[in-house]
């Protein structure tokens, strides 16, 4: 009994370290192949590129741990970007635009949660439908043209290195505190572990789901604001497939697709693995198509490793 307990503790820790190890290996490999890769500039580039994906991925981290799934965050990302562009164009003050944009994101997430909880349909279907709805709304509002020439104070949010990276870091910190310190976070793991056990334990599962999806929408909105500020334009074609990139980063980090297991620390690693891989490959002049292929292989490898180890653990 004691022996099994000890091995488990060790194997849990070992499993937690694996993605980090992967990240270190990937970074070391690129540094070895290319002498110029190992510079402060590349590091800054990687971190900046991680900002959009990272803040976006904060949402699915929570949603996946709770046993849910949100496929619409790419569309919410787009809707918020277009919305922010329109409001700025209409001359709203920057601070108000930011607040309104975040509210659009959160409200979209809340609508997802309400539909899933209210109808009882699977989250995959519910958010697949809403993905189309938000995308269509964004297209109607954006009329497929660029909205640009934003005020400098808005551009500052995404400009340079410092502010965006800081925003991402604070987002991660907030999610960390949420998941590890609050009752909502504590019960998020329980709901993902077993919906029914949690309900029997008195957890208001439906209300909580509503909150988790709302948070997911909020971070999609935040990510969109940074992107819009950074590029100084928005377009209703944005965000296509980004929900899957974000979910991929969360999964690569080691958060379980079936819920109940995971954490924001893992997502940080997952996001860094994806961005380092992209940065390294483009540094070597590899085309974006090949970058995509390599990310695909990494997803499959990471999940296979997890499945393989769990199966071996079960046998033991």
């Amino acid at each position, binding site marked *: *009994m*004691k022996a*099994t*307990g*000890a091995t*488990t*503790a060790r194997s849990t820790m070992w499993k937690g370290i694996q993605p980090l190890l992967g990240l270190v290996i990937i970074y070391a490999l690129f540094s070895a192949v290319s002498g110029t890769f190992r510079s402060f500039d590349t590091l800054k580039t990687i971190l900046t590129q991680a900002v959009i994906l990272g803040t976006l991925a904060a949402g699915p981290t929570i949603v996946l741990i709770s046993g849910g799934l949100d496929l619409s965050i790419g569309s919410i990302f787009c809707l918020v970007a277009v919305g922010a562009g329109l409001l700025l164009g209409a001359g709203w003050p920057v601070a108000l635009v930011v607040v309104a944009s975040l509210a659009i994101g959160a409200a979209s997430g809340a609508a997802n949660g309400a539909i899933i909880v209210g109808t009882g349909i699977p989250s995959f279907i519910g958010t697949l439908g809403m993905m189309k709805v938000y995308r269509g709304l964004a297209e109607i509002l954006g009329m497929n043209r660029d909205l640009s020439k934003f005020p400098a104070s808005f551009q500052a949010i995404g400009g340079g290195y410092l502010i965006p990276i800081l925003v991402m870091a604070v987002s991660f910190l907030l999610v960390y505190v949420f998941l590890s*310190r*609050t*009752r*909502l*976070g*504590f*019960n998020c*793991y*329980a709901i993902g*572990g*077993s919906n*029914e*056990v*949690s*309900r*029997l*334990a*008195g*957890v*208001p599962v439906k209300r909580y789901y509503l909150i988790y999806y709302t948070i997911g929408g909020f971070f999609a909105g935040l990510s969109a604001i940074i992107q819009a500020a950074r590029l100084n334009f928005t377009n209703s074609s944005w965000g296509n497939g980004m929900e899957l990139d974000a979910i991929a980063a969360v999964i690569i980090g080691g958060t379980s697709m079936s819920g*109940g*297991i995971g954490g924001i620390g893992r997502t940080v690693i997952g996001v860094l693995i994806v961005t380092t891989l992209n940065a390294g490959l483009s540094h070597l002049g590899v085309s974006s198509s090949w970058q995509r292929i390599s990310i695909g292989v990494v997803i499959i490898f990471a999940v296979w490793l997890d499945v393989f180890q769990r199966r071996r653990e079960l046998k033991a």
Partner: protein
Amino acid sequence: MPSEAPAARLVEMQGIVKRFPGVLALDRVDFDLAPGEVHMLLGENGAGKSTLIKILAGAYSMDEGRILVRGQPVAIHSPVDPLELGLRFIYQELSLVPQLDIARNMFLGMEPRRLGFVRRGELYQRAARYLEKFHMDLDPRAVVGSLSVTQQKLVEIARALVKEAQVLVLDEPTDVLEDRSRQDLFEVIGELKKSHNVGFIYISHRYAEVHQLGDRVTILRDGRNAGTFRVAEISLDRIIEKMIGRRMETQYPQLGSPRGEEALRVENLRRADKLRGISLRVRKGEIVSVTGLMGAGKTELGRAVCGIDPCDGGQVFVDGRPVGLASPGRAIRGGLAYLAEDRKSLGLIQVHSIRDNYGLPSSYRLSRLGFIDHSAINRETVEFMGKLNIKAPSLQTRAGQLSGGNQQKTVVAKWLGTRSKVLVFDEPTRGIDIVGKSEVYALMKDLLEQGIGILMLTSDYNEALEMGHRVLVLYRGRIVREYARGEASEEDILRTAIGTGAEPLDSLEGKA
């Protein structure tokens, strides 16, 4: 005819022994089946019925003994072997495809085909011919999912017979209360044994039907064959006596007397035809056992009292205060806790640690302004692990790695953490070995001394008697009888539970 024919028995199982870690599940059991007979297999939960059948089905391997089919010794090593010998098993869980119709199900995997295309016309003609031949009044185009459970059984029988089965093993579903097509099932079985000389092994939980259906009956008790009889030569009373017998001794603690004040009062709880107006009281320091056959409404009662399933009416009071039944959360805050029978999927989150499981229902109490007090969870978990003697390497050990007894103790700890005043135990010791059982009983006794009231839902009559200050017997959603401690034997309870010789009592309040 079966008595005349010297022809080999269809199936003979001789001296079957099966050991599980720490348990002798089957102890030299003999069993046989003649062509054209229905052989009923009876026994309480854990008596060894399903183990015996699983050995025949190739799901378990036996440790000693031999099996003969039509007089020839056979080796059954895998689930495929018995199928090749003409044996078919129809389990409680149906193995039909509910979306397909009867004909498609009957010929699944062996549809009449031409050039790779299914010949639909022939499929339905053949199905209809077979159904008529088997005396089954069913439409081959009816979708299986729309049939009653008993009708689905018929389809399974038909499918087995299409594959030329000679031995059919049926495991009676236990959760079906009333079903008009049961008579059809019995008639079909009666016809088939005559016209096709098929042998049936029928595992039943409805002892009252033994005489209606069976030719012979074998009673298992504690892994032994307690006797095989011609049905015509044994009364229901004798069968019940044989089933109970004298059993292995479980250690029960000496219970003290209850304190007197009321802990739980349930008034006229109703839910469709599952609960037909249930009223009961549990005092502090008292265990009230509620027993009955499967499907009598025990679990439904527990879940309704604890706000898990909605009910149509009735009230629940803890310490004299009304408890909201709208959600589990309200019942928990009112001082109730429901300890589900299915600890694996309803009691504990298997992939989470002991401490996380402990903290779950208490997360309201153990947080301030929405922030969880992790150190309090740790402290209390350690405290309860010591108090309840939960054996685990650490509080971070995953629940899935604990033994049955330790899992149950963890569930109890989890619910004590919510400061519950009344615990509703649903089958508290099902699936727990003898040592674990004694520990759970000792724990229940400790709880009584702390002034907790326990409502114990159990189908183990011995447990109901030994661990209950009072025993209430449920029959079809109604409490039909109350026994004081020491007033009844297991036979009495079983007789009441199957609905014979009991005058229904409408109101059973406060005999205390």
